[in-house]
């Protein structure tokens, strides 16, 4: 492969050119109710050439390696066509040339587990859900594992061959009473250990009980509340509300955004620390090198409330005169790499959960991140469930808890950060730029936020 790609790159007429080739073997299965609805094994093979000339980019993706030299030429011609209009300097921050073949450090590799074992594990989980309570009318149990061999080479002389593993499962109990249907579940994943899906029985039974309880729970009343986010919700918040703002590709060409995201600007109180890391081994999204061949790192974004860094590709780093952070990631060979998060974390604080609760007259404890979205300034995300907080104590269970707010105001309104910690490796992913779902993860303690708007009947 090394010879093949470097030979093809010899014909590159561009300021920069790279080739990425991937082969992914995937197993997936889905139970819906009693049925094992889908089970499949697949082979996804393909590659791409990306070229930059005079500031313009060309990108060609394919499934066949035939005529690779021609594909290099096409990408370079496309880049030149754009470059002829832009006539700018090409920007790619300098990084060390790497020649390395890396074997994955996997604790338990999914390819060592037979299909029968995988089916049996999830059949047992499915049985737990369906046998838990008569109100549980169905289940949704999904599992996947992917093992991807990636070959990357560029005209700087870098050549990296690395294996990436991604494992995930999501298991939901669906409870129905009359016209009310609710769901609650467990989701987990890993980049290096099949064992992440094992031993989930007790957690799953708790989720089943919660689904049953949610049937009788009222919909939360809309309004403005003090909210405690559990680590999963806080992780979703930091990803959606701040992480995307830290991705420098949305800042480089936008002077107003550069002003808003000026390093040194205060975004929150001194208790607030946020970072993104590719080094949290085992977490979904971690890897040694990104999809431009840049080593990953821990990147501090907010330190003691002050903006200190952002996530970069080689291009965005060069345009802003900053250092690449190993954050250029592509969903697969059919996409060019763009700036993405890896494991995004809120640093541990010093407040206990009891301290967070004690002075809240009326508030909400939002639990379990269900999903969310941001446009840079505003965010919205939904909890799987919540509890009212009344007079400093957890009170009744509520459902349909959706939070919204202004990113900057909400960061400034974080007044307590917990002394606990949890990594959330749920089986979903990030959806930026239609490259969805890209494996990411989050880490956070409990976090308390003042004045959060909750949707619902007023």
């Amino acid at each position, binding site marked *: 492969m090394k010879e093949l790609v470097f030979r093809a790159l010899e014909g590159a007429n561009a300021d920069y050119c790279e080739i990425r080739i991937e082969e992914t073997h995937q197993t997936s299965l889905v139970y819906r109710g009693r049925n094992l609805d889908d089970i499949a094994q697949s082979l996804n093979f393909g590659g791409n050439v990306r070229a930059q000339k005079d500031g313009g980019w060309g990108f060609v993706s394919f499934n066949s390696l035939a005529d690779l030299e021609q594909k290099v030429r096409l990408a370079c011609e496309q*880049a030149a066509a754009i470059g002829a209009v832009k006539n700018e300097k090409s920007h790619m921050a300098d990084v060390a040339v790497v020649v390395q073949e890396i074997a994955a450090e996997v604790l338990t590799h999914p390819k060592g587990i037979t299909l029968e074992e995988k089916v049996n594990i999830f059949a047992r989980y499915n049985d737990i859900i369906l046998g838990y309570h008569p109100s549980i009318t169905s289940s949704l149990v999904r599992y996947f594992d992917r093992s991807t061999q990636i070959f990357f080479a560029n005209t700087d002389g870098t050549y990296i061959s690395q294996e990436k593993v991604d494992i995930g499962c999501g298991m939901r109990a669906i409870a129905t009473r009359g016209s009310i249907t609710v769901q609650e579940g467990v989701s987990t994943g890993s980049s290096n250990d099949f064992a992440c899906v094992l031993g989930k029985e007790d957690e799953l039974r708790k989720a089943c009980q919660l689904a049953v309880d949610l049937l009788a729970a009222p919909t939360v009343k809309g309004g403005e509340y003090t909210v405690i986010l559990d680590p999963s919700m806080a992780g979703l918040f930091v990803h959606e509300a701040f992480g995307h703002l830290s991705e420098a590709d949305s800042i480089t060409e936008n002077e107003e955004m550069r002003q808003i995201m000026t390093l040194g600007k205060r975004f929150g109180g001194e208790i607030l620390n946020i970072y993104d890391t590719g080094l949290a081994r085992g977490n979904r999204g971690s890897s040694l090198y990104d999809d431009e061949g840049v080593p990953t790192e821990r990147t501090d974004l907010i330190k003691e409330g002050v903006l200190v860094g952002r996530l970069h590709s080689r291009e965005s780093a060069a345009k802003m005169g900053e250092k690449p952070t190993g954050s250029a990631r592509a969903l697969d060979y059919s996409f060019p790499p763009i700036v993405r998060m890896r494991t995004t974390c809120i640093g541990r604080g010093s407040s206990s959960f009891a301290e967070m609760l004690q002075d809240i007259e009326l508030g909400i404890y939002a639990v379990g991140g269900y999903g969310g979205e941001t446009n840079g300034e505003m965010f919205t995300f939904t909890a799987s469930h919540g509890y009212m907080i009344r007079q400093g104590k957890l009170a009744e269970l509520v459902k349909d808890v959706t939070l919204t707010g*202004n990113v900057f105001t909400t960061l400034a309104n974080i007044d307590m950060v917990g002394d606990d910690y949890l990594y959330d490796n749920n089986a979903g992913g990030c959806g930026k730029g239609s490259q969805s779902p890209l494996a990411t993860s989050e880490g956070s303690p409990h976090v308390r936020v003042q004045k959060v708007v909750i*949707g619902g009947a*007023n």
Partner: protein
Amino acid sequence: MKDLLSRAATVAEQAELFQYNAERQAVSFESSKLKEITSTEEQSTTLRLIKEGRLGSSTVTKPQSEDTLLNYATNTLKYGSSVSYKFPGATQLAQPSVYDARVTRVTQQEMLDMATDLVSALHAYDPNIKAMVEVAKQRGTYALANSAGFSAVCEYTTWLLGFGGELVSERDGFLFVHDYIAGTDYEGQTDLLKSRVIESFRLARSIATIKPGQYPVIFAPSEVGSVVSPLLACLNGRAVARGFSPFKGRLGELGFDPRLSIIDDATANGAVGSKAFDREGTPTSKWALIERGTIASYLLDLQTAAELNLAPTGNGSTGGPVPNNIIIPGGSSSYDEMLAGIDEGILIEGSMGAWAGNPYGGQVSGNISLGYKIEKGRLVGRVKDCMFSVNAFTDLRDNISALSREQIWRGNTCYPYLALQGVNISAKED
């Protein structure tokens, strides 16, 4: 294709082969600057096998990987889904128009010119807006054959114009507007898209405030999909057959306002969701899911149809039933009349996060990312920092005040404006 099917027939009782290949070219602007040209070649082959009532499947994208394909599909047979259906045999098919040779003839330079024209139009309105454009064309073919004798090929084209921009200011914060036209026919006229996007920027110029409460709300065609998404999720045959859906056992029941119908139409010429046969070889058609408020049918593939003892509806895909083109017929009011009838309310063109709730409960809550305050029948400014909440099951039954005569196609949907009364709006209280 025949060779592989013959080999598959030696290991299974039924076999089905789906082959797909496509070429796509796109030109894009980002932050008002020409960014990249992309070319994509895609090919994939999917094999499904049925043996002793179990279904196995595999997909490969690597050329000359027939052995892997057959091995993987055979591996999964032992554990696969229990099925009682048979793959359909040869049948007469009515092919809607989904191929336009003009799409294939558009040159890269013409695509660049079109994108440049869109950016220039937005800058002529306001040079501070950072424009985003994607002009893309695709040509592809897919072929389906099975051991029951079905064999068909479809060649199609797709044309996409995506256009929008962002405006960031210290005073008014972030404003994003994006719209698109997608179809199988060449659409070289960018005027409609220009006018829609520039009008949205114009309307959002000033900021209006809104207090929390209940208001009449008009959902624009671009946002109607958020409100009806729980209905489509619950009409999906998988949700019905697996017991997720509260619509199970309710065919023929009047569940919604009689002015509301939802049609699945795979026969519409030029629409991206149109096709003569679905992914499993079932002929497609045009039929009502909700007919004048009554739950009329579910979206069904071979598996869910067999489980529910109903006929498949031509909505099969690789991952269960999916809609083809969803159409909500218009009502009797014009959009202007709907607007004129509102003393204080909101027009919502875009939202964030509305997809993130539990669709089987009907609840939809989203941040209003692009919406305008209505005062005395006029749009007076953009609303921000607020969220709408509706329950699709109850609000589409009890609270529809009007559906517009005007409908707008976007991708595989065609929706009118939808006005609901008493929509909950949450916002900052100070």
